């Protein structure tokens, strides 16, 4: 019996990662290298948030929560969205607490995409988008965001990708892996393209708290007319350094959130009770931690951008998330060859840009979610390595 014959067409439609070999190598060398290859905060969850989780367990709160999440948490999310982004969501019907932003992305896609529906995905982007669409039987239509455009999605590109079969548009800004942020006027221009089209928007705003002056995050849901066709995906992983707690949320109109909740209640039941109680404290008292982490990220960000440029790599200045996405084409190497050689020769792990879509080829993602000491060492090695690569040509 060949078990592969039993796998569904949809599950088989997910292609293997473009950087499998690099993955294997990085895993083999784990512990011996400086890792700037990690898309999660190096900070541990702030202590008062951890204590809220401990308290929850000590009180014996080990049961399921309501499917949508505790109402206290949904109310805190509602307040937070109003306070931070001037968006109003009703805690009882328009907010769903999920197992990370990841689950929320999958739920929304499954709730709205029929087989054959086209879904527009600007790349480079977070790796789950395309797979979620394929699993739902949808057709991913990718748009390359280019370095010349500061890795922003341009309205003409969006216009050109729209067809009568388009159901949904992904908007993942601040962006993983490029660090690009869309300004208010740029979001408005994209909204203008969508205004008269019957399409929905998935706004992945996991990095909304991590923008650096002069940039600030502007949600497309804040543009008049867009709120009622947009689901915002957000969470606690990046802003509050809570990746391992597995908690996030979605905000959107009742019909969409209701459909997502229907899938969620059967697939997942509810997100972790401990994590929900900790998340509540994060929203109520965590602002100062977010500010402190953002300031530290910003110092590292400036340092890494400068170091890449000093090393001879053109590098767009990212104003969001915790990534820098320099152009390695002057070395004449592919992204994978560059990262594999850098890892073996200099013991520093960074990620090939093509992991995030074909248009990421020629670039690498450097995560500055790492200690300043390690960043400084890694950047010295980058300079030596790039120097050697360019000389060899």
């Amino acid at each position: 019996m060949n078990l592969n014959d039993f796998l569904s067409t949809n599950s088989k439609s997910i292609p293997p990662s473009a950087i499998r070999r690099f993955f294997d190598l990085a895993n083999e060398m784990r512990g011996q290298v400086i890792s700037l290859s990690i898309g999660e905060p190096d900070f541990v969850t702030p202590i008062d948030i951890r204590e809220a989780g401990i308290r929850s367990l000590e009180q014996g709160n080990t049961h399921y929560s309501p499917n949508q999440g505790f109402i206290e948490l949904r109310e805190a999310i509602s307040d937070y969205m109003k306070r931070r982004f001037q968006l109003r969501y009703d805690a009882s019907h328009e907010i769903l607490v999920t197992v990370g932003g990841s689950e929320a992305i999958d739920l929304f896609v499954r709730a709205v995409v029929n087989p054959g529906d086209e879904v527009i995905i600007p790349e480079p982007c977070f790796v789950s988008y395309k797979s979620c669409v394929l699993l739902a039987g949808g057709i991913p239509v990718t748009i390359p965001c280019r370095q010349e455009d500061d890795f922003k999605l341009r309205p003409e590109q969006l216009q050109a990708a729209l067809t009568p079969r388009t159901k949904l548009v992904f908007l993942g800004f601040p962006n993983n892996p490029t660090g690009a942020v869309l300004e208010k006027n740029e979001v408005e221009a994209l909204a203008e393209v969508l205004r008269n089209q019957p399409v929905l928007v998935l706004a992945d705003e996991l990095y909304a708290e991590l923008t650096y002056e002069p940039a600030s995050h502007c949600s497309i849901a804040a543009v008049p007319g867009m709120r009622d066709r947009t689901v915002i995906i957000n969470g606690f992983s990046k802003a509050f350094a809570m990746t391992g707690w597995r908690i996030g949320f979605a905000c959107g109109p009742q019909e969409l959130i209701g459909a997502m909740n229907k899938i969620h209640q059967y697939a997942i039941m509810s997100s972790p009770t401990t994590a929900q109680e900790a998340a509540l404290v994060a929203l109520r008292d965590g602002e100062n931690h977010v500010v402190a982490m953002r300031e530290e990220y910003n110092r590292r960000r400036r340092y890494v951008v400068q170091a890449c440029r000093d090393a001879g790599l053109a590098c767009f200045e990212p104003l969001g998330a915790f990534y820098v996405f320099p152009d390695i084409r002057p070395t004449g190497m592919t992204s994978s060859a560059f990262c594999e050689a850098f890892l073996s020769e200099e013991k520093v792990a960074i990620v090939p840009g093509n992991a995030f879509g074909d248009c990421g080829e020629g670039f690498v993602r450097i995560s500055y979610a790492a200690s300043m000491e390690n960043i400084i060492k890694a950047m010295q090695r980058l300079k030596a390595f790039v120097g050697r690569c360019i000389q060899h040509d």
Partner: protein
Amino acid sequence: MEKREEILNLLERNAKLTAAEIAVMIDRPVEEVEATIASLENANIILGYRALVNWEKTVAAPVTALIEVRVAPQRDQGFDNIAQRICRFPQVKDCYLMSGSFDLMVIIEDASLKDVAMFVSEKIAPLEAVISTGTHFILKKYKMNGTEFFGQDDDPREAVIL
């Protein structure tokens, strides 16, 4: 945060940062950072730059002692005179005037047990103003100057997260 405090925080965590590196991190001209550091040094706000050493990992493995000293204050001098005399001993790393049940906290680091015993009995106890001493030895250092000594050396995260 004020730029001056930001520079102090950065240097307190890593004294090896150059002015040029700090300038990039905090987005200020390097000349300004150099001038700020110079003024902090001149004002004795930055008192020095030292390595943070975990001596427990060396073969020598010397001890750290906290010596509580009770002192009879002197007329017109309070505790300053006796404190100054104690501070002049090169073995003394820190010396603080304390509130509570004793007066001076004297800290000796990187010495052998015998060195500490000799120091207390031969240098401190005989001083005429000293009424009594109580010596505590540190058994294990968990955290020093903000740095945890028992933390994981390795990054606990996965090798690659996309």
